């Protein structure tokens, strides 16, 4: 386990094309052209970004069982600032320095950065570094929804939903169901 100290850059970029930040057969995260981005720095290198613009997150939080499918697709418009750790090299070649609107964004980005890195998720400005992505989206109740994809594995934790998936194995916990599925065999608690 290696512990790192992250900081937020003060340079705001604006994307010049539509970008796909993550995609698998289970979900995707996309941002539209003209999305603002500020880098999350580690040892003077960008390790991720905080974005604000028009984006979309899709996740098929569905578990297939031998008794039928449980769950539903989640489709979330991303208009509030959200955070991504991982895949930093995709942004810089496809963006330019923003001229307007950056101060308000920087303040909100700093709040999100503080909440993520210094809040309950990682604490004390340190983070357990790993491969793959971490996305954090602010939900309606003011807390952070987390999406952590890594290869075929996906972990999604939202306000009332936990979805963990790895190929043919999945766990879904929602207010209606608790489902554990392993290659079609399943336990369903209602």
């Amino acid at each position: 386990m290696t512990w790192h100290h992250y900081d937020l850059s003060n340079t705001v970029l604006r994307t010049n094309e539509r970008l796909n930040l993550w995609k698998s057969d289970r979900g995707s995260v996309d941002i539209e052209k003209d999305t603002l981005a500020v880098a999350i720095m580690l040892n003077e290198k960008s390790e991720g970004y905080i974005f604000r613009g028009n984006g979309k997150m899709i996740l098929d939080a569905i578990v297939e069982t031998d008794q039928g499918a449980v769950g539903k697709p989640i489709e979330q418009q991303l208009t509030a600032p959200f955070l991504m750790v991982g895949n930093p090299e995709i942004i810089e070649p496809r963006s330019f320095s923003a001229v307007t609107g950056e101060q308000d964004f920087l303040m909100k980005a700093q709040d999100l950065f503080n909440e993520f890195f210094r809040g309950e998720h990682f604490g004390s400005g340190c983070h357990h570094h790993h491969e793959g992505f971490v996305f954090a989206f602010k939900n309606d109740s003011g807390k952070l929804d987390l999406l952590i994809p890594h290869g075929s594995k996906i972990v999604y934790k939202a306000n009332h939903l936990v979805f963990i998936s790895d190929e043919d194995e999945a766990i879904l916990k929602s207010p209606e169901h608790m489902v554990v599925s392993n290659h079609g065999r399943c336990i369903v608690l209602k």
Partner: protein
Amino acid sequence: MSDDIREEMKKLKEEMASLKDQLKEVGRGERRHRHGLYVDIGGPVHDYMDDVLQSVAEGVHGELAKSIFIGPGGTRIVMRGRQPNGKSEEPIDLARAAGIMSALGHEHRLRILNELIAGGKYINELQEKLSEITTSTLSSHLNVLEEAGLVVQEKMRGRYLITMPGRTAYEMAAKITSFVKQGEQQ
């Protein structure tokens, strides 16, 4: 005379002893009854046991008939919450129920559900199975089933999957049809 009296006294003592023994036997019977061990079954024990087992078996069979659907995928036990008085916990939402029954009320939609029981399918795979209808009609049927919660479509891959309620609804339709057919044959 004295011999007669002695003989009479001996008979009386024997009768008294016999009465005491009978009294003890009656006392033991009453004690068993008080502790619940004595049961007047009005016949041989094995007949009584047969009656009890028959009654229990009929009760269990009745409950299982209400709780199990047997479909193409095998046997499934459906656990349903019941209040002590036997009524369902929640009153049925009749408008919603009518909507779901309406979604089931088309042969093509039942065939779609039947195809999806075998596993998730893309629309072109369903189109191959229901080649007599157009793609737009098939899409319309899928929308009806999706709105009723009987089918769900993956956003990324686009596959259609039958949901748990969808499977239950299909099995219920199959069961009702089977009952009606049996009724017609009798």
